[in-house]
């Protein structure tokens, strides 16, 4: 019970219009994008995505053709200079993003879906089922994500689909833990108990009553997982276990152009900056989502009503 035994009504000064609630995730995204952090994050991330997606169509050269001698600096022909095999850095950069993004997206989706399913069911059914899942989660959490991926790739080699699956599975424990924790809070709430009293089937309760309340934590977790997927997949490529040469890939380029760092730093700097800007952008935007809450139940401490900042909760 809240402080004085009375939970005061939440600040509904910005009582959200009913139509916003029907598609809450849209409203959350919109609010996040309107905040300053969210706008910057979205801008950064989307510009890199644009580079990755449009890049292949506007690259001046192909990613493999020999343009000039190795590690020469920028010139008219090759705006960012050449890499170790004389290929045009700019073109390789433009080609090198979309596959990374695609793999990261699939791995994130995989991890998020499985993790959420496990997390919610563990929280709802409790008991031995819960214990079992949490045991399994603990086991898999004992591996750092990149180590786990390397483990799976060690024997079979760097097959792309295996990379995606390995990274996706390595996300599952964390997602399951977070979603389970959020679901536990929800399952304890009276409105879920009220529905249980009707003897409605668990599946309906989970989908109809619990899942809609998980939208915000879920979106935040997906954002985090996506950022992580990019980091790990590019990282695996960096140490040689992702896309293999001669494929263009930002992570791979970071590594293979290290030797020529002094001669043509752009070959390293540009892919590094792209990856960095992307991850900073997605991370910042995810942070903005975390700070947005629309009409979420919050007992307002005492009756003091803060009319300002209805959507953002500053911490």
């Amino acid at each position, binding site marked *: 019970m809240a402080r004085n035994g009375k939970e005061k009504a939440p600040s509904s000064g910005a009582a959200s219009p009913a139509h916003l609630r029907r598609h809450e995730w849209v409203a959350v995204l919109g609010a996040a994008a309107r905040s300053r952090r969210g706008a910057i994050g979205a801008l950064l991330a989307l510009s890199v995505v644009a580079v990755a997606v449009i890049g292949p169509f506007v690259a001046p050269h192909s990613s493999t053709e020999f343009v000039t001698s190795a590690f020469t600096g920028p010139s008219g022909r090759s705006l960012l200079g050449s890499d170790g095999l004389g290929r045009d850095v700019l073109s390789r950069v433009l080609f090198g993003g979309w596959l990374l993004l695609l793999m990261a997206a699939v791995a994130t989706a995989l991890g998020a879906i499985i993790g959420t399913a496990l997390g919610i069911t563990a929280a709802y059914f409790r008991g031995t089922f819960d214990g079992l899942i949490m045991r399994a989660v603990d086991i898999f959490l004992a591996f750092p994500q990149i180590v786990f991926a390397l483990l799976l790739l060690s024997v079979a080699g760097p097959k792309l689909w295996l990379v995606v699956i390995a990274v996706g599975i390595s996300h599952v424990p964390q997602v399951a833990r977070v979603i389970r924790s959020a679901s536990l809070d929800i399952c304890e709430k009276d409105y879920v108990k009220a529905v249980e009293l009707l003897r409605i089937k668990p599946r309906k309760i989970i989908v109809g009553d619990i899942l809609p309340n998980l939208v915000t934590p879920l979106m935040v977790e997906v954002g985090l997982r996506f*950022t992580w997927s990019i980091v790990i997949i590019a*990282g695996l490529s960096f140490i040689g276990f992702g896309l293999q040469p001669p494929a263009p890939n930002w992570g791979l380029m970071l590594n293979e152009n290290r030797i020529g760092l002094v001669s043509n730093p752009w070959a390293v*700097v540009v892919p590094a900056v792209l990856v*960095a800007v992307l991850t900073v952008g997605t991370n*910042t935007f995810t942070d903005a989502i975390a700070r947005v809450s629309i009409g979420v139940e919050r007992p307002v401490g005492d009756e003091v009503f803060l009319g300002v900042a209805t959507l953002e909760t500053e911490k």
Partner: protein
Amino acid sequence: MSTTIDTLARPPSEGQFHAARRWSRRFELSHPVSAMVVRRLITGILTLFLVTIVIFAATAVLPGNAAQAVLGRNATPDRVKILEKQLHLDRPAVVQYWTWISGVFHGQFGVSLANGQAVSSIVKGRIINSAVLVLLAGVIGSVLGVGLGVLAAARRDGWLDNILSVVSLAVTALPEYVVAMAVVMLFASLVFHVLPAVSVIPPGATPWSQPSAIVLPVMALVIVIVPYIFRMMRGAMVEALESDYVEMARLKGSPRWRQVLVHALPNSIAPTIQVIGLSILYLAGGIVVVEYVFAFPGVGAGLVDAVSARDIPTIQLIVLVLAAFYVFMNIATDVIALVATPRRRLPRS
């Protein structure tokens, strides 16, 4: 690290606490803390045991097998069969597992497929090197992160707080290899040339005998974890400073420094310990890439080499070491956090 949520790591759950109390009665252990330690240790060993199964399954059961991997291009079916027999890969999986695990118990971790030496001798030195790295980075990072976090929270929304918050949000999202590359570019290759880009430590030498070799890797690791510790510490302190009991202290006439240090800080210790523990755990994964960049002779680089060479026994041992580190480090931080929280440590009279 890119965990942006200022959700505080939670102290050990109520459920675990009550379970510990039940155990303490069963085993007649007087103190719930010691009961919890015992219980967690047993669970930890069990977890590790299951971890070994996972490790073994991943390396022995997945498509492609070790023999093929080792032979690589030279893999004709005949040669594969001969090597399989040599490596005992023709025996059933369970037997292979048993051979391996009993070897582990006896301290025999097998022979490296890459160079024929005993795996343990290769890995031992590397463990020490990596431990030094992690320890240094952990200590420096914690001190910096905690200190900055307390400062930022105490002068909340001031200029220091704003700058630090923005910077930490950005840096925390950077992948470790980007940070490592940036550090190399800044201090070794492009801008300044004061430190080596590659950490040359002769085999058998201790890392601290070559101080210049460890500066950059440690710096890279510190940069990776400080933002995370900073944000969590700041979050914990802010929550404590906004609490009712700090407000009460203020209404009693307590000066600001006392509110922060005497009232808020003790309540922030438990989440801080957990955060520091999590950061050190994170480093266990971070060293893989960072050591690779600097060619630092630690377990991280060792793992990468082993995977490149398909050196299964070495891979198995290194992953096992890392997992064991994870499990026991988790237990340690949970126990310390429990001790630091009187509410969990002492039951209601």
